[in-house]
């Protein structure tokens, strides 16, 4: 019989081994990775000492002999090296893949009409044609994640247990799912998808330098390169409760550049379409001018026109402000809506925390200060704060801080619903509902003898199906023939802690059931991911088998460890016989996991899960009771 590990109550239950975990800010323009080392969260740097990795991937020509030899050694460039090629090799250099991920082809084409890529693939699975073949935006993000994870493993000196990857708070289900797929493809274990403003709030709330900032309502104003988020949170004794969130998935610093570029083109008397190089020159000059105007009152802009003629103009801060003021106003409207959703007035907001590089623009700071009637907090590095917050959460989720008081209560950013008669959307879960959440709604048949029902899942705030994002369609079949309105079809929506949705439907009288993880209709299904993984490995079959085996062995070890820790802590919830029974299953799993067969290990894990189901339930009830009784003591 295995020995029990004895620990004092309140002490860490696991023989303390620090698990390596990291937080990744997967940004539109730049990405970062951070980790908690000896209690302190900090960003990790590459061999050149840079912590910022440009989110740019270049697909190299593999036909040259030298590259073929190193196969996938460096046939794909990520970061600065790729950035250097973004102008000269535009079609093979993917910039801002985050703007494309989880979106449909028509969506991409209407939002970003002047992208220099050749698209292919179907409406729901757009791909970019590069010299290395068709590339899905998910694969591009996977390359960035892989690069960052490798950097972390080098810096921390070991394998990562898992990572927390951040996403914009208003990312919809398809965009979240695609981000998770990218991690899978990169071979990175995701502990949690975390909303960017929530990550920033954690970094801010736990920052000991912030005087008195730890309690009360705060607003996180997050304006990045391509996205805008506003989140209202209540901080209370380590609990970060998101009250509401909102934003714009296509509003960021890039749009400021576009506004300036349009103005310059007009001033220089240029008529579009322009040559790609002049177009790019315009954008670069616009971005340069924007950056200069954060500290200067005016800037000299110089362009080399088609006929090699020089053209220059002086752009004043005043002019720049007038060019972007409509965009800044748009962000404030989102702030107003979010405050209203949270039922909070601007006076109740204790602090406004600025996040994202674009909050360096002076007009943004001035307008935000005017709106909230308080000076926004800009002392935390707006580029790093999200990665830092993600690292803190990753450290907790990895189990390194069992006594931590920190809890993040996040919300779903967009309403979720179903299509009903007449192309209308019936909302099942409203936006800003705290997750995880499960909600059921009943529907009925409208025709006599109807035996099937089409279920169309949508996301968005508008009333009409056409104005919302279609997430999935599935059918409930085998409904017994009844008169119209007699069937009771119960549709259940579940959103997990990552903000991901699954939907199931059941006819109540017959028990006929159908369910779907809202995934295959958008993004990639599992077989496609496996295929991509295989394609990415040189020795496909052997490599992937080895990886599967390794994954199952790690999982088996994790499960055994957690159950042993649970038994140590809560053995009073089990009889002696029950302990012995569970330990036998543990022993058998431990033996099997020494073997070479991933599937057998997987089923042994499942067996152990079943064997501990009752124990898990008792533990859950006991911790609920403890939470309640601890509280009555507080009341006394």
């Amino acid at each position: 019989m295995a020995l029990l590990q004895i620990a004092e109550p309140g002490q860490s239950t696991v023989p303390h081994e620090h698990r390596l975990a990291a937080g990744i800010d997967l940004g539109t323009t730049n990405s970062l990775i951070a980790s908690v080392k000896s209690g302190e969260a900090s960003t990790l740097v590459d061999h050149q000492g840079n912590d910022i990795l440009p989110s740019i991937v270049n697909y190299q020509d593999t036909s040259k002999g030298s590259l073929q030899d190193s196969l996938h050694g460096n046939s794909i460039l990520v970061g600065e090296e790729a950035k250097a090629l973004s102008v000269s090799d535009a079609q093979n250099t993917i910039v801002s893949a985050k703007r494309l991920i989880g979106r449909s082809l028509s969506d991409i084409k209407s939002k970003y009409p002047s992208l220099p890529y050749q698209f292919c693939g179907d409406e729901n699975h757009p791909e970019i044609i590069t010299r290395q073949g068709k590339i899905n935006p998910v694969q591009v993000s996977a390359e960035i994640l892989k690069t960052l994870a490798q950097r972390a493993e080098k810096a921390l000196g070991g394998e990562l247990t898992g990572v927390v990857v951040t996403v914009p708070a208003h990312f919809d289900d398809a965009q979240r799912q695609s981000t998770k797929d990218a991690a899978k493809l990169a071979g990175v274990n995701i502990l949690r998808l975390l909303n960017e403003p929530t990550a920033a709030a954690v970094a801010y709330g736990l920052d000991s330098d912030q005087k008195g900032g730890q309690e009360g309502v705060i607003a996180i104003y997050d304006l990045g390169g391509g996205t805008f988020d506003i989140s209202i949170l209540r901080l209370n004794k380590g609990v970060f409760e998101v009250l509401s969130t909102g934003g714009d998935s296509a509003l960021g610093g890039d749009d400021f550049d576009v506004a300036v570029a349009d103005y310059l083109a007009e001033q220089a008397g240029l008529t579009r379409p322009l040559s790609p190089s002049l177009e790019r020159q315009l954008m670069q000059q616009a971005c340069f001018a924007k950056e200069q105007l954060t500290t200067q009152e005016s800037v000299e802009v110089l362009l080399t026109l088609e006929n090699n003629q020089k053209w220059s103009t002086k752009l004043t801060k005043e002019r720049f402000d007038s060019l972007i003021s409509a965009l800044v106003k748009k962000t404030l409207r989102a702030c107003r809506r979010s405050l209203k959703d949270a039922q909070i007035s601007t006076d109740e907001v204790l602090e406004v925390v600025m996040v994202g590089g674009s909050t360096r623009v002076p007009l943004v700071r001035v307008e935000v200060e005017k709106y909230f009637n308080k000076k926004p907090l800009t002392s935390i590095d707006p580029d790093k704060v999200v990665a830092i917050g993600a690292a803190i959460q990753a450290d907790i989720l990895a189990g390194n801080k069992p006594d931590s008081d920190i809890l993040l209560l996040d919300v779903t950013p967009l309403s979720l619903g179903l299509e009903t008669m007449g192309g209308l959307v019936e909302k099942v879960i409203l936006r800003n509902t705290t997750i995880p959440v499960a909600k059921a709604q009943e529907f009925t048949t409208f025709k006599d003898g109807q035996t099937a029902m089409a279920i169309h899942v949508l996301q968005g705030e508008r009333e009409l199906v056409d104005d919302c994002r279609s997430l999935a369609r599935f059918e409930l079949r085998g409904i017994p023939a009844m008169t119209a309105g007699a069937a009771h079809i119960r549709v259940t929506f579940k959103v997990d802690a990552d903000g991901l949705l699954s939907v199931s439907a059941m006819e109540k009288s017959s028990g006929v059931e159908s369910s779907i993880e809202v995934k295959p209709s958008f993004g990639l299904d599992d077989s496609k991911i496996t295929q991509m993984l295989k394609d990415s490995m040189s020795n496909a079959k052997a490599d992937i088998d080895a990886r599967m085996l390794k994954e199952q062995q790690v999982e088996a070890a994790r499960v055994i460890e957690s159950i042993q820790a649970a038994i140590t802590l809560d053995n009073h919830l089990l009889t002696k016989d029950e302990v012995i029974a569970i330990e036998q299953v543990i022993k058998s799993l431990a033996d099997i996991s020494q073997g070479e067969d991933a599937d057998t290990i997987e089923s042994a894990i499942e067996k152990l899960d079943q064997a501990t189901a009752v124990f898990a339930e008792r533990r859950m009830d006991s911790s609920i009771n403890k939470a309640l009784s601890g509280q009555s003591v507080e009341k006394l």
Partner: protein
Amino acid sequence: MNYFQLFDINVSFDVNLNQLSQTYQNLQKAVHPDRFAHASSQEQLLAVQKSAEINDAYQTLKQPLKRAEYILTLRGVDMPNEQQSFSDNAFLMQQMELREMLADVKFADDVDVALSSAQQILTQEYQELLESMSAQILTNNTTDNALACDNLRKLKFYQKLNLEVERLEDSLFDD
């Protein structure tokens, strides 16, 4: 276990919201999936279910109309469904007038004043209904439970009107 039991409080329309929120946070600290990121998948699954149940309980107990409906359901009062026709004609007439009042806000000389006076009227009528429902729930007999049920339906009409006001505000200020 009903939601009141889950939160360890008596079944009552009167709820101490501060205490409720404190209990909510303590419960979530005990069961939230983040606490089980390293646990067995069995425990992870259970954590998601429990956490979702506590979220639903909190939302139900926190919001007065949901709380009232929950109490009445616990008492076995038959809740008429939304589609069922409403027979109180005087009330329906009044609702139509209120809707007209809202539609006219846009054309008022001073939109701000018109909007805030409309909001004031709605809030006042809502509060009056809420108070009488609260008293009826407290007495807890068959007649009063049925009356509370009627008032709850009326309050839902006001809830919808408030959504209209929000939409109106958005359309007036989102230029």
